């Protein structure tokens, strides 16, 4: 036993030695190419949200490299998977950093983005997400290195409230959510703005995703008799609740956010989807770059682009434009360029405000009519 004790103290000593040496260690990243990282969920159940962004980045980079790159250097793509899990996102971020990425498109999920941003911030890497909508990411001021090409949930919630009051003339609302990061966040914001506008929130509750039955909550909705049910969450649960509500002959308005503004919502819900409201990114399908990007995607992958493709496309363009305008991969220069220089993207001509949110990107309200989402105009 004595020997083991000595051994341990020896090892401890070695540790101390190596550690002191290690603190003063620095990196030297090679810079013959400009490295652009793409991080997000590329496998697992949320892969369908992450993969379109890879496609977008590839298409943009191929086009730019074909023209000779930027600043005389080729752009190199680094793709890393984070499965949308915060604990994995940290590893993904360090991988990209140690591979020398100077800018990153990603991450996809808000939670994973939050986990990764701390690493990027310390390493002086700029991240631009096509899909993370948590308001805190930009509004909290904690992440000066973060930008996004999607409007955040607060914008959406305000729009929902405005629409509900102006167009639907509601007095009482029920706010339901799926207890998830995205869903509950959106629901909390909606509730806040409804109360600010003097609308009574009669019910604010979460349901368990994957539960066998939602009749209790539906019954409660009937009991409280609101004019509108606002849903925070993704479309599978929304579809279950709408279906059950309609089957139980409850005709209350139903409104969700971009989590349900998805064609699968209509396909899954079928006839019960009629009349459901949803907010989603403003329709930009008539933008010329948008049409071009869609064509490129069809040519390269033989299918229509998936979710967040255009936002990913825009993010890649904006980042590369920023580097070009900055003239280097210097962190401060790029940030400055992103905030001042406009860039043409499939989402329109955008620039970033001091928080990191893109200007000129907005939301619209849609209504399901005859199995399609139709854009609605807000009454003034």
């Amino acid at each position: 036993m004595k020997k083991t004790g000595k051994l341990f103290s020896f090892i401890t000593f070695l540790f101390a030695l190596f550690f002191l040496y290690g603190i003063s260690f620095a990196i030297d990243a090679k810079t013959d190419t400009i490295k652009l990282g793409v991080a997000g969920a590329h496998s697992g159940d949320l892969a369908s949200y992450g993969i379109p962004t890879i496609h977008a980045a590839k298409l943009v980079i191929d086009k730019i490299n074909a023209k000779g790159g930027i600043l005389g250097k080729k752009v190199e793509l680094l793709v890393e998977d984070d499965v949308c899990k915060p604990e994995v996102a940290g590893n993904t971020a360090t991988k990209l950093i140690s591979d020398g990425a100077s800018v990153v498109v990603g991450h996809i999920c808000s939670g994973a983005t939050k986990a990764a941003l701390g690493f990027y911030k310390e390493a002086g890497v700029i991240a631009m997400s096509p899909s993370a909508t948590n308001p805190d990411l930009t509004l909290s001021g904690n992440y000066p290195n973060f930008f996004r090409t999607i409007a955040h949930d607060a914008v959406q919630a305000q729009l929902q409230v405005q629409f509900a009051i102006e167009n639907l003339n509601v007095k009482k609302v029920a706010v339901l959510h799926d207890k998830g990061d995205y869903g509950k966040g959106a629901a909390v914001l909606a509730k806040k703005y409804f109360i600010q506008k003097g609308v009574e929130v009669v019910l604010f509750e979460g349901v368990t995703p994957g539960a066998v039955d939602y009749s209790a909550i539906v019954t409660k909705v009937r009991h409280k008799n609101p004019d509108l049910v606002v849903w925070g969450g993704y479309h599978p649960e929304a579809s279950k609740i709408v279906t059950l509500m309609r089957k139980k002959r409850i005709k209350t308005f139903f409104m969700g956010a971009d989590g349900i503004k998805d064609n699968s919502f209509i396909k899954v819900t079928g006839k019960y989807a009629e009349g459901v409201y949803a907010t989603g990114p403003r329709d930009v399908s008539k933008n010329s770059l948008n049409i071009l990007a869609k064509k490129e995607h069809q040519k390269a992958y033989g299918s229509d682009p998936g979710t967040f493709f255009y936002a990913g496309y825009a993010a890649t363009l904006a980042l590369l434009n920023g580097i070009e305008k900055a003239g280097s991969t210097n962190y401060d220069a790029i940030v400055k360029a992103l905030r001042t220089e406009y860039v043409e993207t499939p989402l329109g001509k955008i620039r970033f405000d001091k928080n990191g949110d893109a200007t000129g990107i907005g939301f619209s309200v849609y209504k399901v009519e005859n199995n399609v989402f139709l854009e609605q105009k807000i009454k003034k």
Partner: protein
Amino acid sequence: MDFDFLTYLFFGGLTRGSIYALIALGYTMVYGIVELINFAHGEIYMIGAFTGLIISSVLTMLGLPILAIVVLSALTAIIYSCAYGYTMEKIAYKPLRDSNAPRLSALISAIGMSLFLQNYVLLAQTSDFLPFPNFIPDFEFWEPYAHILTSPELVILITTVIVMICLTILIKFTKIGKAMRATSQDKVMAVLMGVNINRVISITFIVGSATAAIGGILIACHIGQINFYMGFTAGIKAFVAAVLGGIGSIPGAVLGSFVLGLTESFFAGYFSSDYEDVFAFLFLVLILIFRPSGILGRAETKKV
């Protein structure tokens, strides 16, 4: 108004209870015979629903009449669930029984099986929610009451009662039922009396899987969509129900399911559905601490 609210919640709870019951029956039967918490039982239920969905899509493509589709896909789903239940027992539990492994090993093996089957379906099919065809149309005669209880809910309630009656008959009055009861009381004696235990256990798994498959299809109709994870949450809840009623006892499982379904429904209705699951688990913990044998279970004495 308030009385109406109560009625709605009551029927909601009843539906939920019968859903739990269909799954809980399998848990309780298997536990009664081999004293094993078949953690993967929820997965059998999920496989039942998936098989039903797949077969019905294929048949729809072939253009069969709706009634034929419903009957055929339900039958196939039941058959496949039974086959999976049977195979699972042979792979994950029988070798352990043969080597007299501790009960903990069997439980770990069951967890492994559950994980395996979930990911098997995830990889072979999809992680997305798939809409389930509406097997149960809105009955016209039921229209006046549809706001209280939808047609699928009505069918679920009736089916649960039928399944329970059939099971009771099976166990009380048939030869295999007698063998099951014998095995559950004393395995060694049952062998000496000429009962083929392996056969009895296999049949128990098959019957349990069949009820799970029926449950799977009905719930898929009720909810309207399925995914690979549906078995886990439902399975855990059903297990809570089975324990609540006294695991090993068939009337206990049904009673426990209704009690759990109703209390959950009332809890969600009068308090909040935020903490609905917390409540269910707390309920389980309290039951196990204060009355481990459940409502209808027998207290056991340990042998030294």
